[in-house]
């Protein structure tokens, strides 16, 4: 049911994403709505205030006129102070209309400012008369009214226009345009959010697909690796067994174990079979070793080894070849050289490979020196020949598997070309290194180093079996 779990998981992720985005979106939309509501309230506030300011002028004019009437005709009802108060209040409404911040829209009405300024001028003209007016003075009253009454109609006009129709519709239009713009913005935000959600879903889906692909690839690799192991196990046995048979029987024939062969040629041919089979076996071993190392299937059987013993064994094995090429083998191993904790089989192989190479590619009649020394805690073996050396361009490539240098005077290449790379791999398995230094015409030195952790002190070496 793993597929089901995966499905649920992916949908949970998507659901979370949707919730988060929806939350953000809803918040944004709500904020927009709030702002629009605020705008609307401000507009209605402005509408209200403008109407108030405008109507105040009209209203106070009427109140003053009424006070004037009562002052003239009902003297006790209104005293002069009250009359002046109403006059002053009327006067004070004019700057509020003309310059006050709340009357901006009122001022924008056509003719409004002129009307109110006209009223101000008229008030200035009648001020003295009002101040000196006596109760009952009808003529005085008429003179004042003559100046002020003409403004009643225009002022009412302003109030009326602010209260209804044209100006309001302009305001409404502006408001609607604002609302439209906000709505478009909301739609825009909604669209973008939806797109983002879709993109996120796609990305999530893709990442899951990739993860699945990787899982599949990994499983394929694992099974391939397992197949390789099985192959190595089988082939190792399958290839070597018949080969060993061939070698064994070729030896029997060459040694005439069951009686004489008759023709010397048969003996020679048997020898040839033997040589080829042995060569094939050595190549096979090298290839299998390399394959094993490459797939990290080379276990180390570590014990305490004496370098001198290893070198002695290898010397014995290469003596025939050395004699054939008249190469002298020399060793330089100090007596107090510490022991080495390593796989003796691999150590022998390293030594053997290097020695073989030195003899093969060294100068015929020359000298090969195998030396061991301690260097800064490391145990280092070096094999030096005095052959033609290796040109710098080729130094790198000779480390590659299957590379074979120009063999001097042999019609058949010997070895598998894996000797050096195997030696390097074996050294690295021991956390060591292999290095070549050579100059054309100056000979070659191959150095193999083993780390201090593998160096065994005298006391420890004594305890070793």
């Amino acid at each position, binding site marked *: 049911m793993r597929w089901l779990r995966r499905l649920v998981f992916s949908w949970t992720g998507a659901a979370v994403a949707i919730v988060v985005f929806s939350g953000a979106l809803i918040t944004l939309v709500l904020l927009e709505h709030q702002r629009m509501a605020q705008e609307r309230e401000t507009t209605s506030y402005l509408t209200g205030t403008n109407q108030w300011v405008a109507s105040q002028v009209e209203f106070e004019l009427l109140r003053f006129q009424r006070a004037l009437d009562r002052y003239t005709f009902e003297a006790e009802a209104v005293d002069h102070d009250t009359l002046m108060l109403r006059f002053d209040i009327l006067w*004070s409404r004019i700057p509020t209309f003309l310059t006050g*911040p709340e009357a901006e829209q009122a001022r924008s009405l056509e003719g409004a400012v002129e009307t109110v300024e006209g009223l101000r001028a008229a008030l200035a003209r009648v001020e003295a008369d009002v101040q000196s007016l006596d109760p009952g003075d009808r003529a005085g009253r008429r003179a004042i009214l003559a100046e002020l009454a003409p403004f009643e109609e225009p002022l009412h006009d302003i109030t009326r226009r602010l209260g209804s129709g044209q100006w309001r519709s302009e305001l409404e239009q502006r408001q609607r345009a604002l609302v439209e713009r906000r709505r478009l913005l909301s739609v825009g935000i909604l669209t973008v959010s939806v797109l983002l959600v879709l993109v996120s879903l796609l990305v999530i889906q893709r990442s899951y697909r990739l993860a699945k692909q990787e899982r599949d690839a990994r499983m394929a690799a694992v099974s391939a690796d397992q197949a390789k192991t099985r192959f190595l196990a089988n082939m190792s046995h399958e290839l070597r067994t018949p080969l060993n048979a061939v070698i064994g029987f070729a030896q029997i024939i060459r040694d005439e174990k069951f009686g004489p062969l008759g023709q010397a040629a048969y003996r020679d041919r048997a020898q040839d079979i033997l040589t080829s089979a042995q060569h094939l076996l050595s190549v096979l071993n090298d290839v299998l070793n390399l394959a094993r190392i490459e797939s990290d299937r080379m276990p180390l059987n570590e014990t305490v080894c004496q370098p001198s013993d290893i070198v002695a064994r290898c010397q014995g094995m290469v003596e025939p070849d050395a004699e054939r090429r008249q190469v002298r083998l020399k060793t330089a191993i100090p007596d107090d050289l510490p022991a080495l904790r390593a796989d003796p089989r691999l150590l022998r192989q390293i030594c053997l490979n290097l020695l073989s190479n030195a003899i093969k590619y060294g100068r015929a009649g020359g000298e090969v020196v195998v030396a061991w020394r301690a260097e800064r805690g490391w145990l280092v073996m070096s094999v030096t020949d005095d052959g033609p050396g290796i040109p710098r361009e080729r130094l790198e490539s000779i480390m590659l598997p299957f590379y074979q240098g120009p063999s001097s005077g042999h019609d058949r290449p010997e070895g598998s070309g894996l000797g050096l790379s195997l030696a390097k791999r074996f050294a690295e398995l021991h956390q060591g290194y292999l290095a070549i230094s050579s100059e054309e015409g100056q000979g070659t030195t191959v150095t193999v180093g083993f780390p201090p952790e593998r160096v065994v002190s005298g006391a420890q070496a004594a305890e070793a079996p």
Partner: protein
Amino acid sequence: MRAELCRLCAGALAALALVGAAAHAAEPLPEPQGRVILEITGEIDVTNQGEAAAFDRAMLTALPQAELTTYTDWTEGEQVFTGPRLADVLERVGAGGDTLHARALNDYEADIPRSDAQQYKVVLALRRNGEQLSVRDKGPIWIVYPHPNPESEEPSPHNYKSVWQLEAIDVR
């Protein structure tokens, strides 16, 4: 010994009571001599005209005068307003309540939160730049708030409470 201690305690208590009473009870308000320019009604302890506390200009100027230098949305440039602090006037009449219902000469009305008096150091301005405020000039009393940000185009949020031509305050 015990009798003396008792007398001491009684004396201390009496003194405390007196101080407490004095601190709590406001002085009685004299009758206005000149024209009444401000009438305070509602939840107040001190009255001088029936249920109301009436002030003429002299009585308002007798209170400690404050100077508020600020801008308003109806004036140009920096202005200096002089007059008693609203808080002081309210204390003078022993006002309680939490809303001040202010009414102007032209019937404009506004509700002012009682806390504004302390929070914004509101002034009942009688003079602007040394000149007495006439009715035409938004007098006799103008409730002036400090302008929160004169630099910006935004009108002050206190504008609707900044009642001019103040006539009466009803404490609710």
